[in-house]
């Protein structure tokens, strides 16, 4: 690295802003970052104009940390623009990596979402039925806003991505690993996921033994938590199907893993793997005695399969969205 400072950019698309906070969670190391790098774009914290980015030479930005999924034309345009202007593009956080919570909007489409948000919600009063339009005429002239898409996409379904930092938000230790590697110029091979190649269970504090459950419980239904694997207590925990690196933080707070780390290495589909794991241990004792209705009753305790098994990853799953019927 030359003596010249590194140039960073942070951008957010369809995300909640938690990833931006996570950047600050690296505490005083942020001062090292500030010493080593200039920040050229960070809409959440500083005032920049898109035209300043447009005016940069191609490849001017050293590293762009991009969080959020892509679900409207502004986000898509900025993804392409920042890709052109950045040497290294990092998909930062679950939304950019696998689609994240906004990805669950793939269970509906633009029409369905607009109907709920602008017409059907109990707190909405919209007698004229006004919905946002990409372009509208007012007396001062034409007003435009970004176009809303039917389908939420991940960052790498939109542009080429160099590195992936999964997590909702990415754990501080992984952000530190990434930032340190960038400052030292010791980046892993392109396309790497900056997280360990092991599952959340590997880092989980709970005692684990044979898994065999007779029913599925939702978190609120468990009165007294035992000090053992949550799956063994009947709570759906996505630990076995989820990439670790988070130090199993949620488990430390007695909450099950919901899968923000994305699929484990070499797994095509996180939800499919979890379905396999869960169905295998559910009703394992005396499984030969269950009749078909009893098996159905067991399975029916999974209330919302997509929301349970694809909470952070519907846009990157094998089946990326709901099939909408006319």
């Amino acid at each position, binding site marked *: 690295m030359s003596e010249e400072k590194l140039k960073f950019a942070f951008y957010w698309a369809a995300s909640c802003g938690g990833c931006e906070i996570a950047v600050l969670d690296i505490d005083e190391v942020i001062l090292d970052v500030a010493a080593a790098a200039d920040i050229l774009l960070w809409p959440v914290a500083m005032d920049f104009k898109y035209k300043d980015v447009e005016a940069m030479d191609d490849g001017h930005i050293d590293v762009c940390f991009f969080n959020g999924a892509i679900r409207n034309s502004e986000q898509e345009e900025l993804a392409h623009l920042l890709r052109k202007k950045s040497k290294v593009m990092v998909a930062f956080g679950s939304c950019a990596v696998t689609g994240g919570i906004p990805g669950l909007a793939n269970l509906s489409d633009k029409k369905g979402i607009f109907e709920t948000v602008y017409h059907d919600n109990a707190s909405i009063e919209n007698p004229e039925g006004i919905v946002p339009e990409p372009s509208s005429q007012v007396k001062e002239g034409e007003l435009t806003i970004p176009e809303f898409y039917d389908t939420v996409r991940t960052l790498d379904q939109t542009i080429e991505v160099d590195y992936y930092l999964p997590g909702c938000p990415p754990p501080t230790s992984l952000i530190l690993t990434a930032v340190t590697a960038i400052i030292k110029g010791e980046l892993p091979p392109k396309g790497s996921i900056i997280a360990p190649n092991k599952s959340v269970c590997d880092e989980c504090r709970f005692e684990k033994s044979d898994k065999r459950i007779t029913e599925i419980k939702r978190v609120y239904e468990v009165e007294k938590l035992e000090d053992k694997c949550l799956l063994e207590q009947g709570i759906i925990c996505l630990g076995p199907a989820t990439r670790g690196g988070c130090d199993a933080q949620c488990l430390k707070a007695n909450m099950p893993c919901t899968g923000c780390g994305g699929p484990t290495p070499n797994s095509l*589909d996180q939800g*499919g793997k979890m379905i396999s794991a869960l169905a295998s241990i559910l009703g394992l004792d005396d499984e030969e005695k269950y009749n078909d209705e009893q098996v159905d009753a067991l399975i029916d305790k999974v209330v919302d399969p997509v929301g349970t098994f694809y909470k952070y990853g519907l846009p990157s799953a094998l089946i990326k969205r709901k099939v909408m019927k006319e």
Partner: protein
Amino acid sequence: MPDFEPSVVAFLCNWCSYAGADLAGTSRLKYPPNVRSIRVMCSGRVDPVFVLDALKEGIDGILVAGCHPGDCHYQSGNYKTNRKIKLIKKLLDELGIESDRVRFEYISASEGQKFADTVTEFVFRLKELGPNPLKEECQ
């Protein structure tokens, strides 16, 4: 859609259902030629990801067949597959894909007729359903 010929992938367990399909052949039973058999050692080997991947690739129907309860060569693979398929069906319902596209059957080595009947019924049902809605997307 009169000309529609559904594509069917059948995962058949080595010990019962594949032998059942073999018997259907050696007994010269007639069944629709839409089915492509894949032999697996146990129906328990069929990962839900195989089923989802087949659907994503545009296959119209997936048949998984294993030994009858109590007959599994590995003791309990068929019970697990039964539960997996039920959970996959529930997932597909939520994703707007007809869950009838995935079917699990117990077919023993002596049930050549049941294999032929199952395939015939399944292909008939798939013709009613029409092409896999994910097919357009993957082309």
